[in-house]
């Protein structure tokens, strides 16, 4: 990095730094020095790093500049909402058996005290309250695997975060209700939020967690989220991320996962819509026998940009990992995949697999895929693959000569293409609903279309030959 490079969005950076200086007193009043020190350190790091720009290898393809130059309300402090959450958000997934926790514009709106404790000892809470209530858990885990130096956004979050969720599942507890955390943006202002989550699974604990990012109006907003997940020995986490945002929304998520011996992670990120979505997943396999499956699906069109970065570090021997990402890219959309498997010298007997398949539908769309392997051990089995292509013409011909119209034939093939990822969803109701959402999405009938101001779908145009795929 050259010293005299021009920083992007210097004004916003300046404003955020001022914001920190203005709020540090209130942080000091509320929080223990443990947290304040971390914030101060992160503030210095953000000051040094600034926002990530194209000179950084991992940001070469994602240009934040135009998005950061928009005017944001960084001091936005939401008035505590009083309306029932059902009036704010209705989950698209029917009869989805979950305990739903909602955050509106980055603010926790569940109950006055913000802490729910289940009979089995599981805790779900507002992070800012949990911080005070469970200092020992935070001391042991908070900030342990977040690497602020990775980019300025993470440092910024570590300095300025306000609220978020905290989940703790004690040792040997299989939490049998699925938890669904929903973060909704519904604001007249263009808000810039820094949300922070912490999830801890004790030894042999099990949890299924669904994280949804949704937005209601079509205002420009910037979510800068950092999630820290700690899986202790034998813990098992199913993590689903559903991102269905409006076209102006910017979502930056950085998820850091630390895995101990024999722990298992299955993560599935489904991006259905959004202006600019970047998901950074950083997994450290620190104990023998740990396994991480990181999967994802993205269906983008119009001018959307979706960027999935996955970094899996095999630090010890006998771990396995899998990265499978699939995407369909339409209109002028741009998809980026960067998978990076790092096998350290001690990580013998590693099995790592990486795959990214893309279907490109138009000349104005762009696909960048960078599947990287970095290997320092010799007794390993690592492979990766990446493809970019279009629908198989022979298969299309076959379907069409059976009397299926071109549109439906395309639909069928696309839905077959994405099936591999959808089938990995272990929650049956969610799988069915995501499947339905994806079908709608592929047909261009976005579930969010009613609220969408673009109205890109011609409402007068009837859809013929609607077929029930399950019966073919």
């Amino acid at each position: 990095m050259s010293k005299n490079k021009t920083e992007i969005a210097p004004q916003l950076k300046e404003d955020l730094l001022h914001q920190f200086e203005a709020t540090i007193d209130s942080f000091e009043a509320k929080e223990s020095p443990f947290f304040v020190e971390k914030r101060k350190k992160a503030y210095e790091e953000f000051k040094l790093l600034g926002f990530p720009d194209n000179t950084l290898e991992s940001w070469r393809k994602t240009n934040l500049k135009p998005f950061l130059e928009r005017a944001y309300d960084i001091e936005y402090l939401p008035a505590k909402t009083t309306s029932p959450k059902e009036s704010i958000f209705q989950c698209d997934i029917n009869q989805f058996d979950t305990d739903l926790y909602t955050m509106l514009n980055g603010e926790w709106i569940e109950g006055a005290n913000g802490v729910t404790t289940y009979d089995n000892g599981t805790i779900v809470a507002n992070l800012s309250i949990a911080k005070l209530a469970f200092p020992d858990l935070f001391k042991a885990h908070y900030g342990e695997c977040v690497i602020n130096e990775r980019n300025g956004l993470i440092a910024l979050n570590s300095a300025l975060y306000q609220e978020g969720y905290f989940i703790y599942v004690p040792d040997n507890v299989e939490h049998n209700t699925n938890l669904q955390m929903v973060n909704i943006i519904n604001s007249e202002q263009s808000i810039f939020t820094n949300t922070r989550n912490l999830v801890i699974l004790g030894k042999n604990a099990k949890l299924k967690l669904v994280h949804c990012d949704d937005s209601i109006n079509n205002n420009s907003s910037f979510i800068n989220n950092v999630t820290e997940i700690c899986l202790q020995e034998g813990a098992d986490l199913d993590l689903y991320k559903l991102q269905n945002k409006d076209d102006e929304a910017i979502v930056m998520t950085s998820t850091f996962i630390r895995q101990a011996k024999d722990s298992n992670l299955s993560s599935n990120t489904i991006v259905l819509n959004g202006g600019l979505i970047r998901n950074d997943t950083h997994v450290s396999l620190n104990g023998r026998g740990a396994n991480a499956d990181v999967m994802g699906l993205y269906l983008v069109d119009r001018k959307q940009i979706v960027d999935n970065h996955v970094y899996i570090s095999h630090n010890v021997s006998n771990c396995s990992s899998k990265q499978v990402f699939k995407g369909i890219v339409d209109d002028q959309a741009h998809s980026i995949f960067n998978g990076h498997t790092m096998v350290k010298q001690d990580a013998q007997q590693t099995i790592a697999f990486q795959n990214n398949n893309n279907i490109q539908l138009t000349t104005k769309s762009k696909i960048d895929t960078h599947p990287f392997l970095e290997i320092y051990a010799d007794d390993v089995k690592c492979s990766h693959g990446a493809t970019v292509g279009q629908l198989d013409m022979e298969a299309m011909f076959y379907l069409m000569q059976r009397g299926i119209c071109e549109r439906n034939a395309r639909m069928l093939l696309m839905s077959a293409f994405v099936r591999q990822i959808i089938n990995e969803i272990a929650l049956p109701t969610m799988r069915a609903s995501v499947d339905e959402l994806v079908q709608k999405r592929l047909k261009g009938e976005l579930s969010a279309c009613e609220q969408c101001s673009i109205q890109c779908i011609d409402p007068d145009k009837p859809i013929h030959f609607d077929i029930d795929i399950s019966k073919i």
Partner: protein
Amino acid sequence: MAKDEHKIIGEVTTTDYKYGFVSDIETDSISMGLNEDVVRLISQKKNEPEWLLKFRLKAYRKWLSMTEPNWAHLKIPEINFQDIIYYAAPKKKKELQSMDEVDPELVDTFNKLGISLEEQKVLSGVAVDAVIDSVSVKTTFSDTLAEKGIIFMSFSEAVQQHPELVKKYLGSVVPIGDNYFAALNSAVFSDGSFCYIPKGVRSPVELSTYFRINAANTGQFERTLIIADEGAYVSYLEGCTAPQRDENQLHAAIVEIIAHKDGEVKYSTVQNWYPGNKEGKGGIFNFVTKRGLCEGDRSKISWTQVETGSAITWKYPSCILKGDNSVGEFYSVAVTNNYQQADTGSKMIHLGKNTRSTIISKGISAGKSHNSYRGLVKVNAKADNARNFSQCDSLLLSDTCGAHTFPYIETSNPTAIVEHEATTSKISDAQLFYCQQRGISPEKSIALIVNGYAKEVLNKLPMEFAVEAQKLLSISLENSVG
């Protein structure tokens, strides 16, 4: 078994560099360092026309404004560019008319390398443009080639004799400011080869050049320009060996290839510069820019490389597929051992319709070395029906080495089909067991497997070269692994 393997791999590090000798030829060097005067002096010494001096100066000024690239997976010691002699030419006693007049020491050097000019001329039918340090000393078979209208001569001669061709094509594929080392080369290149195959001519022989760094502390800045006119074909061979030196030597070459309509260029190289000793001391820094332009429809450029030498290799032979239906190919075997570092691969830029490209890269890492594949496949919005297949495999022979793969795929066309696959593994115990239970020694088993692994690429080399390549693989991993 593991013990044997360790022993074998351990022996690799004791294999001496076979071609490490210094020949004592009088050289005409200029003083160390680089400034505008040095650039002018080089140009003046070579009696160059004004436009070429301007080209050099422009490149030099561009270079001053640039910084060394640091994105590769390489640890490059700081290079003092003022500590290098930028020009060295064997002193010419007089114009050479026949073989007898060639410096006997020089002939001896070639003999040690196994390239007797005499023999080459009579037996193999390969025209050799031998380059010692920076100036071509002897060009053979020019008469035979001249009959066909093929121009094959040293770069400086070409500047004098065919300035219009050189002016037209120089810097047209690798612009002066392309990258740091390309800019440096454009400013100070001393000599190299020039090759022009006229319309419809198939070169009757394989053209080859042997590069050899000779004088101590002399960076070599070769410049190669190959042009295949409409319907022309040429197979070009380049091989390098360098004497053993303790100080790092910089080699920043540029190879430019232009293939017009229906033209085809096959470029093969065996690179065996001095890799440094087993402690990682010394060795050549090989920072090369190689790029081909498939200018016309149905043109084809094929790169084949066997990389066994150099302390640090930074090299990405590329193809710009501009003409419709043009084809680019890249076949590579890269072996690193001891403390060698290699960051190599290919770039395929698809611009024309129905363009096709293939990348086959085989990396073998041993010792404490690092071997990276870095490649780019880019499909432009107008490149309808572009097709790419890339395969890059890595073989790890020790637990202290590294094998890395950094492919970049960027497509903007919905009809493009791009596939990339790669595997990284060590030699499987099952394969070794199979060979050994048939009575093959562990050493030979490993050799067999490594050779089989690299076969796909070695097969692409011309006959004359395949032999040398196999020999080199053996030298690099033999006694030991191959």
